[in-house]
């Protein structure tokens, strides 16, 4: 199986890098971590019997670097959108990211919406329902994760790898059933519906 590219997106200081770090630390010793490059990661994930190597790219979350992110999206098969459960705004900002992804990537892509800092339940500001609604709307899967305790992180990446595998396999065969569409994000849904409408109009004329 080839390498598959995954992009980490989300507002600045939301904990993208710490998720990254945690994912690394589960396999490597603490001493070694310092020598590893903290923006780029390649890791093999086993799904059933098959192996996928995910090459994960970190992006800068600062608002001013937003314009640069399309360069990083290129050829990516999946995107992990991270928000902070103690910060409502970080979830709101995800919608902007999604809109941008839609514009830039323009094809289907596996989406994960991940709420970080689940260990700080007392300070929770974002309701799970909101996040899950958003996830449903976009066709993504929602996860609550804690980079600090390592909760759910492996599960999240495992699920991601699974979905990516499925996604890649189905994309190879161009005949996509409607069932498969439910599982994956239809990023350019609007465009397709528009096209259909246009076709219908053409038929009338």
């Amino acid at each position, binding site marked *: 199986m080839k390498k598959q590219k995954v992009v980490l997106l989300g507002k600045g200081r939301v904990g993208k*890098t710490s998720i990254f770090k945690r994912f690394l630390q589960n396999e490597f010793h603490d001493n070694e971590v310092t020598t590893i490059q*903290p923006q780029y990661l390649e890791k093999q994930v086993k799904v059933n019997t098959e192996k996928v190597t995910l090459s994960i790219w970190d992006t*800068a979350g600062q608002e001013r670097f937003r314009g640069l992110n399309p*360069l*990083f999206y290129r050829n990516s098969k999946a995107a992990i959108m991270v928000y902070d459960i103690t910060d409502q705004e970080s979830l709101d*900002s995800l919608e902007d990211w999604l809109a941008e992804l839609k514009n830039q990537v323009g094809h289907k892509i596996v989406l994960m919406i991940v709420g970080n800092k689940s260990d700080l339940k007392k300070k929770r500001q974002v309701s799970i329902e909101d996040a899950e609604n958003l996830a449903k709307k976009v066709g993504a899967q929602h996860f609550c994760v804690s980079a600090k305790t390592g909760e759910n992180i492996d599960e999240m990446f495992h699920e991601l790898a699974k979905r990516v595998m499925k996604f890649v396999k189905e994309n190879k065969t161009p005949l996509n059933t409607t069932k498969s569409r439910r599982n994956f994000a239809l990023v350019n849904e609007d465009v397709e519906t528009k096209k259909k409408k246009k076709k219908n109009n053409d038929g009338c004329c």
Partner: protein
Amino acid sequence: MIQNTKLNHQFLQGIFHKPKYKDLKRKLADFELSLVLPIGKYIQGISLTFELIASHLIFINKQKTIFVTSNGVVGKIKQIEKNNLRKSYFICKNVIPATRCIMGILNQGKYKQYLDLTQDQRFKQKQKQKQKKNLNKNKNKKNKKKKKKNKKKNQDQNSTDFDFRCKILNIETRNFDLIQKEIKVYSTKFPLYYKDCPWLDFIQEKKKQCQMEKEREKEKEKLMKKHKSKNKNKNNNGTTTRLQHRSKLTKERKNEFMKTFGKLKKDPQNFEFSQQFLMCEQFYGLKIKISKFVQHFISDYSDSEKCGKFVRDFIKEISKQYRQHPIYQEIITMSKFESKIWIYNFFENYILNIIYDKAILLLKKSWKTDKEHDFIQTRNRLRFVELRHLEQDPTSIDPEVISNVMKILPQINLVRSPLEKLQMISACSHEINKMLCKKGVKGADDFIPTFIYILIYSNIPNLILNVEYIKKFRSSEKLSMTENGFYFTTIASGIKYLENIKETSLTIDPLTFHHKINQKNHNHNNYDIKQRIKMEIQNYENSKEKGETNINKNNIDTKKKRRNTVQVKQRKTNKGTSSEINKKNYNIKMKNENDKNPNPNPNNNNNNSQKKITKSQSFILEQFESDEQFDLFGKLDVKNEKKKNIFDNSPINKRKNENIWDSKNSDLNNKQKSQDQVPFQNFNGSINTTMDFGKFNEIHPNSLKLDQINEMFNMYPNLLYSYFVKLKDLEN
């Protein structure tokens, strides 16, 4: 009469004996260089040596495939490789005889055109020209005697003598120094015939020799086959038979191959090794393909937009063929995936090393404007930017590492293949990462700003050219999947960021931004980056210390308070909606002023004044806190704090700010132009574009009128705070 050439001599001697060509003999008597070739058939297989051509050469077309000698020989050039040494022989294949080739073409311009055409077209053209000439002559000479002269005309056409001037190119120096010479070209009255050629015997002898050699080779191969027939692996692959013959290696060859391969594996970028590797006989077919491709690309190819894909496709093809090669499969033990990458990289390295110059020429051609120049200009303008403006913590940066990286990065130009360039970039970014990691593992949030900072302050020649080169000649798949690719995209994105920089993309006061970016007389090259970074760190630490003292006194974040105080006043005045961005720049401007001072002493006057202010600040904050009104607003503000916090770069806030700036910016700019810093002009009578707190301290706050204060707050909301500080100080 004829120099250097035995062949010519023989030929002419042969000809002169025949009574037919007495004419020719006379003409050639005063002609220094000449080669007369028979008409009719093409002569094949005569190789003219380098020296001969060099002494006689007039013209070589750009592609270096066809040449013309001073005596009218047109031939094709072929490079031959013998005994692993590349010798440039010039083979006269399909020689077009002198009597024909120059006929009717006197101008150099036309001559060039002629050379670019294929042979069939040439003859068609000549025929057309002849017909035209006939027609013209007929028209002109209608009045004269027709019958008698028609015969003569035909003769004249065959023996038109003319002079022509042309440039002589000197191959030996390879510089193609141009020398102009006048050359006379004669042609014979009667066509020369192939039969008359005296060197026919010579050619036949050569042919016999060639045949003999071929037979010997065949015998050898037969022997080899007998020896190896037992060990034969029947490969019915599409590879050519030649490759299969060569795939049966003797032990010596195998050892050689392994040696070179071992060397290469250790040092895959070494051009010499890779050449040796390709010289191994078993890859003869591939080698020729590559050399053909390279020749074609260097001489003919001119599509600047598709050149990248063109080259990449070829490399893919070649590496695929190579992998299917039986020897390769025998010897090399690597996993499939690994070997695929290795081979691709190898060929890319090898081919692009040769093509490099031409490739870059093509790239430059495709540019409509001089991007490099534009980038350097914007970069030089931006050289006031500090790490703070990019929201990067300067204490996490080691000036030595940065200066090292800045020294290494310009060496990109010394390396030729895209892979090597990429490796250089990623090596540099590893260094940066090491540095950042000392302060805890950090991600792209910190990495990208530091890289941008480096891009601003380093002088990398041809940076944009290099980036575009890599983009074009390395496949986008490989760029988007690998680690090298990641660092490359950071560089590319950094450049994009710098090209499209606005005042909103830096945490800086828009006014100072516009002022600084329009400043012209920077000392772009005369600064020490180490000192600069040290200064920034010192400044940062100074401000941090102050912040800490404030925290100790009040146990509340000082930044929040500052904002609160400003917001309180804003609500009272109902102005200053634009203050959000400006608030933070309170400190930044101070830093800028510090930086401008050439003396590196951190304890300069400005710093002292700053300290005074901060001391009083803390005092005032206490006062404010005891105030009930402040508390009310304060609490309100604390709730909304997170949303309005400028340190969070949420898109919503950003939009608000942008909207504000869309409307306000123009107003502000107008004001700036018309009134030129109203507050200072009024107070001091002097115009300062940046705020000068030292001077502000000298103003007596009580002397300000309400209108002035309002105006001042519009222009510089941050001043408000220090103004109140001063008032309180005075009261006490």
